[in-house]
């Protein structure tokens, strides 16, 4: 795969239009890596002038800040902002709503102001501009797809329509879960829960959300967040529905349809 690294590009005298912020999940988590690859394959196909930070990228600090560790958050933010400003980065796209929220809403207070877009909005723009052309009779045509709203994309940043527009562009049938958009139920991973065992209760949050997704009778659960994806994939395994229902990121849906 050809993936330009920002430091190399700058050394060559190039200045990429947009930085793709891969995020820790997108870099290290096996499931999320395929989302990253899918998104990169779209960027390459469309011919976007982009680059990634590669080994220079660090955690944005979202999980440590949400756990309450403000010191560590500030340390990560300081280092990332220094790097981004040094490279004169103007525009950032990311496939992770947690990175998106932190970069967009929390870094400006600390001296890091960039034009930050989530990949759902980015993909919607490319579709609207006619740069992404969906294959006739693509693999999701007529299929029932439900979309799970990520809290940090939806409630936190009001992005409800972009991912849905992307799904509709596939000629698929978008079916909503009982609770969606601003009423959507969390997958259970936010607030740094991803990195610890759930507190004692009578069920798990991701199981409860998976039940709602299964009840929508969709064949595909679309997500736009690597953490939601992990939580729902786990839920589908527990419900023993892996053969009937797939959990896919919207970038994967597009990558498989162009």
């Amino acid at each position, binding site marked *: 795969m050809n993936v330009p690294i920002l430091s190399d590009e700058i050394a060559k005298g190039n200045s990429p239009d947009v930085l793709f912020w891969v995020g820790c999940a997108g870099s290290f988590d096996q499931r999320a890596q395929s989302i990253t690859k899918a998104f990169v394959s779209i960027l390459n196909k469309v011919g976007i002038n982009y680059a990634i930070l590669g080994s220079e990228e660090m955690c944005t600090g979202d999980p440590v800040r949400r756990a309450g560790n*403000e010191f*560590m958050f500030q*340390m990560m933010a300081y280092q990332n902002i220094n790097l981004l400003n040094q490279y004169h980065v103007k525009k950032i796209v990311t496939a992770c709503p947690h990175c998106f929220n932190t970069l967009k809403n*929390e870094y400006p207070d600390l001296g890091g102001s960039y034009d930050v877009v989530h990949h759902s909005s980015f993909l919607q723009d490319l579709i609207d501009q006619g740069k992404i052309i969906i294959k006739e009779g693509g693999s999701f045509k007529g299929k029932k797809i439900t979309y799970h709203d990520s809290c940090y994309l939806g409630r936190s940043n009001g992005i409800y329509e972009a991912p849905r527009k992307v799904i509709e562009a596939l000629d698929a049938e978008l079916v909503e879960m009982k609770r969606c958009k601003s009423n959507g139920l969390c997958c259970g991973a936010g*607030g*740094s829960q991803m990195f610890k065992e759930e507190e004692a209760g009578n069920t798990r949050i991701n199981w409860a959300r998976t039940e709602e997704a299964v009840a929508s009778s969709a064949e595909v659960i679309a997500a736009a967040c690597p953490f939601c994806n992990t939580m729902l994939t786990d839920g589908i395994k527990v419900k023993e529905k892996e053969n009937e229902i797939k959990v896919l990121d919207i970038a994967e849906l597009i990558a498989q349809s162009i």
Partner: protein
Amino acid sequence: MQFIPQILFLFLLCVGVYLFSIRLIAIRRNILRGKSESLNDQPMERWKNLFLLALGQKKMFKNPIVAIFHLFIYLGFLIINIEMLEIVIDGLIGSHRVFFSIIPSIYTFLINVFEFLAFSVIVVCVFFLFRRNVIHIARFRSSDLIGWPKNDANFILVAEIILMMLFLNMNAADTLLQSRGVNDYSSTLTGNFIFSSYLHPLLNGYNNEILALIERASWWAHIIGVIAFLNYLPWSKHLHIILAFPNAYYKRLTPIGKFANMPTVQQEVLYAFQPELANQEITNAAPSTFGAKDVHDLSWKNILDAYSCTECGRCTAACPASQTGKLLSPRKIMMSTRDRAEEIGRVIDKKGKFDDDGRKLLFNHISEEELRACTTCNACVEDCPVSISPVDIIIQLRRYLIMEQSSAPNEWTMMFGNVENNFAPWKFSTEQRTKWIND
């Protein structure tokens, strides 16, 4: 002799307003014990929130049927206050239905509107009592409402029913006396009112003296009830009818996923990396505690939130942790914050200043387990009709746990270590960040 009722009325009114003011001043003091936070920017946006969220009850309409029921009680409360104005003037100058002599042409129409609202309030309150106590709705049955909160809610509904019935009863007795041509009443011939005239058959059997006594007793009981209710309000969850307005106005206007920055920590980190750039004033300031362990470590807005909460439980019904049986309930976070603010207020009332009473919001009122369960999904904030944020309090308490007590679950401690050493929450080296490219 004839002035005795007026003097008595004036006395009752003054005592009622005095006690109410004393209590409001104490609540204001309790709220302002919180840390200062400037929430005065963008006044247009703030007025818009006040009109839409508080006056317009926008969030209530997520559930239109309940919203309309609630609207009846709300309109009843607001509009019947015009009638209260007449009652107060009558009480002070010894007149009877003073507005009738000023606006005779629309007086009967106005009272009919008030009666319609009074009747609606009774119907809705009966329904709400039924819903709260008979129908099984989880948010009204959870353990955080056991005891006083449940009684408080029922008491308010019953009090509203009684007040409205007294109002209708007063009108019924009055119009019946008018029709009988009794002296004091026939001089203000308003004619019958639509709703109270249905009470006439119940009252018809009484003679004029008894009926006049019933009319006066209803009048007095109604106004004494209203003054008592006014003084019950600020001790009750029902205070939301007042505080919903400032709470909507002072709502934070930043995206709800944005956590408040901590400039002191920012400067300390800057000092470590680039000492020449750090703001010396902030860095040299007396070390403060990081995060919050008690209500006075919170912002005043957090405490205003707590006093604005009417314990409806929409937050807890939407909370993923509460729904899956975790200990966390966002409503209980707000109730605990208010309880602790009140507890501190009582210490101040007693001693004139706050002495450490050995208790804290964290641990004594809110446990670590509750705080650990929050996913920061903001569903509670989204669903709150009066712009309260339980998440904001949870985060400040979490900050105290981590930064002051180093108290974290083992997995989090490991995650912190990974972020610190590998710049990622998992144990992978930075070189591995691009491994996916060639896999």
